[in-house]
């Protein structure tokens, strides 16, 4: 079946709402407006305003309410329109969602799913282009998913809802319109394993989310130069599936991490550190990182393009790793 990332996500929402009465969707403009990115378009007509619940502009309030509802036995899906607004709810995410299970000595779990749009690439300037999924992945108690493919857009939500603990899903804004073929019976997928999206033997390109397809394009370009790159889609930033990464690096002996987050203190730094910890003796070259420039994301197209990782940057990073750059 032909579909888009957005439609796949909507199909997943609809399926979840049909499958379980405890599931409801809550967030800014998820109902009457149809969702800031039109993901939930049409759902309020089908499920009504109680279950497709428009929330006031109170991120901390409705994210916290999601936590409380989860504690109270519901399976809320909270949509935060964009990752930047999640900063207003960080207290609830970090101090409550991630800690209550622990603080209560295991008595109270928080089966909450929070979805949000992330990433640059749409000329939305410095307050709407963050890639903060790596930040959130810093926090024990959370799971952080970054679906990049149609299969994952379609399948991760159900698995996240089945999880007893809070799960954050980061949907890269440039992916919603991505078209492709999806199996008619596509459904739940695992959320704890990375996927090798392209096999290769010379260098491991490790990425996730919005930069997956740039990285795959780069791998094609590298193939033309005789560099056989493997592309790993992390799919989840917490937990990190390091065994898959390490297994790959042990074969290729070189790693390039592509991350739209800023370099300093990023998830790419974490992955690099773990490669060094776990596969140091297998490396033939220093780990290379391709990250966003250390600058708020600019509005002007040419500057935005320059700020975030592009295919050419990935190609250059891979060349550097194999010693030809």
């Amino acid at each position, binding site marked *: 079946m032909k579909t888009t990332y957005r439609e796949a996500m909507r199909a997943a929402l609809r399926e979840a709402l049909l499958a379980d009465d405890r599931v409801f969707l809550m967030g800014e403009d998820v109902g009457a407006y149809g969702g800031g990115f039109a993901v939930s378009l049409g759902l309020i007509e089908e499920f009504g305003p109680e279950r497709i619940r428009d929330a006031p502009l109170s991120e901390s309030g409705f994210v916290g309410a999601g936590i409380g509802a989860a504690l109270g036995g519901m399976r809320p899906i909270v949509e935060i329109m964009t990752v930047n607004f999640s900063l207003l709810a960080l207290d609830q995410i970090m101090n409550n969602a991630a800690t209550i299970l622990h603080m209560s000595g295991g008595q109270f779990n928080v089966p909450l799913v929070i979805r949000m749009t992330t990433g640059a690439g749409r000329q939305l300037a410095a307050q709407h282009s963050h890639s903060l999924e790596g930040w959130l992945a810093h926090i024990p108690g959370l799971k952080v998913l970054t679906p990049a493919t149609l299969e994952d857009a379609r399948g991760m939500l159900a698995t996240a809802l089945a999880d007893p603990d809070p799960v954050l899903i980061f949907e890269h804004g440039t992916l919603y319109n991505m078209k492709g073929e999806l199996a008619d019976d596509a459904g739940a997928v695992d959320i704890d394993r990375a996927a090798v999206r392209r096999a290769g033997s010379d260098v491991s390109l490790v990425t996730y989310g919005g930069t997956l397809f740039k990285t795959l394009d780069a791998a094609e370009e590298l193939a033309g130069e005789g560099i056989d790159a493997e592309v790993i889609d992390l799919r989840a930033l917490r937990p990190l599936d390091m065994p898959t990464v*390490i*297994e*790959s690096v*042990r*074969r290729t002996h070189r790693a390039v991490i592509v991350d739209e987050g800023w370099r300093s203190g990023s998830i790419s730094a974490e992955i690099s550190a773990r490669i060094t910890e776990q596969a*140091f*003796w*297998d*490396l*033939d070259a*220093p780990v290379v990182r391709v990250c966003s420039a250390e600058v708020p994301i600019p509005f002007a197209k040419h500057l935005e393009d320059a700020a975030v990782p592009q295919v050419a940057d990935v190609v250059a990073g891979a060349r550097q790793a194999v010693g030809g750059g």
Partner: protein
Amino acid sequence: MVADFRMPSLGADMEAGTVVEWRVAPGDVVRRGDVVVVIETEKATIEAEVFVDGVVDQLVVEVGQEAEVGALLATLTASGEEASLTLTETPTAAPAPLTPARPAPSAVDARPRHVTHSPLVRHLAEQAHLDLVAVDGTGAGGALTRRDVERAIADRGYADPHARAAPPVAFGGEPGRVKASPLARRRAAALGIDLKHVTGTGPEGAVVTADLVGVTPSTDQGASPAVASRHRPAADASFRRRVALGNLMARSKREIPHYYLSTTVEVGGPWDRLREANERRPVAGRVLPAAVLLWATAQAAAEVPVMNGHWVDGVFVPGDAVHLGVAISLRGGGLVAPSLRDAERCSVAELMVRLRDLVGRARTGALRTSELSDPTITVTNLGDQGVESVFGVIYPPQVALVGFGTVVERPWAVDGMLAVRPVLTATLSADHRASDGHDGARFLTLLAHHLQEPELP
């Protein structure tokens, strides 16, 4: 009943406090909750309360004194009753028991005592396949410490087959892939060593730099296992010298701007005289031409100080004397360049004696540290190998190296006539930071001059 009043803890970050005011005196009656003392800490001044009813007996700590948390501040005689607040207005007989508001939990912890070990201890034990049950703990409460585990592993020695490092687990790597540190890999490549033939001693059996010591380079790509040098059991040392020398020479070529000069010297006269002198001497007293070359070099170095000394931290430091380095090739490979100290003050004969001694000890590995430390200029003599000239690499931090080739017979103009004479090529490699070509030319000219007139015994 005597009760102690101790320095209260007001927070985990409080270690001690200073008594700034006693609110009570011996004999005073106090009730639970009364403020009895004012305590000053780095963070705040706090009124501290007493937790019993009673009479103050003695103030142990005076105003102005500091006391640690838990230290005795005062003693009290407690009344033994804890009637509190002012709720009980008249003492009464024993109260009738009331039904407890809720069942009180059992105060006994009946769970089996769980033996716990720190993560570090567990990790060490797992790595060594050590059963912790058999290990005695010396830590608090008999807890196992790192030292306990390490001692247990050491005590076990190698009796337990598991104690040996487990072979690296094959995990995804292609067959034949050798784990090696990046540094070891780079060095092995530079030295032409095939890592497949090196036994790694690092984590996961990885080859680390130290493992390369004693391994000789493969002569061809994919050759048979490299073996220790066939020449000598001291191959380890030899290899280590090779690596060290290689590093030193690489540094020299990287850092020192070399310039090179050469001159050809006719040595018929002096060599004839040397031969004549040797004819008169028993074998042990004979002088080799090498001694003459060293002598002439030492003389020239003394006369051209910019060739004799060290380049240190961006400046040239002239030598206080000529400590003449002699490049000595070792049997089985390798090179050392020990020094003949104060060489400019020695006669040719003295230099010969010292050279013979030095070479002998160099080749038996009996050099003194001082001889290796501080040459101010070095001579390399490849004459015995038959080459005509040598343009050497300066030993940092020295600034010059003198090379001698073999003596060959060449057509030579003498007094306007062509003749066949024995000649020798002397070369100079010099550091352009310390000297320039003019100095170098002068040095070689003086050297050639001294070669003509050795003061032979």
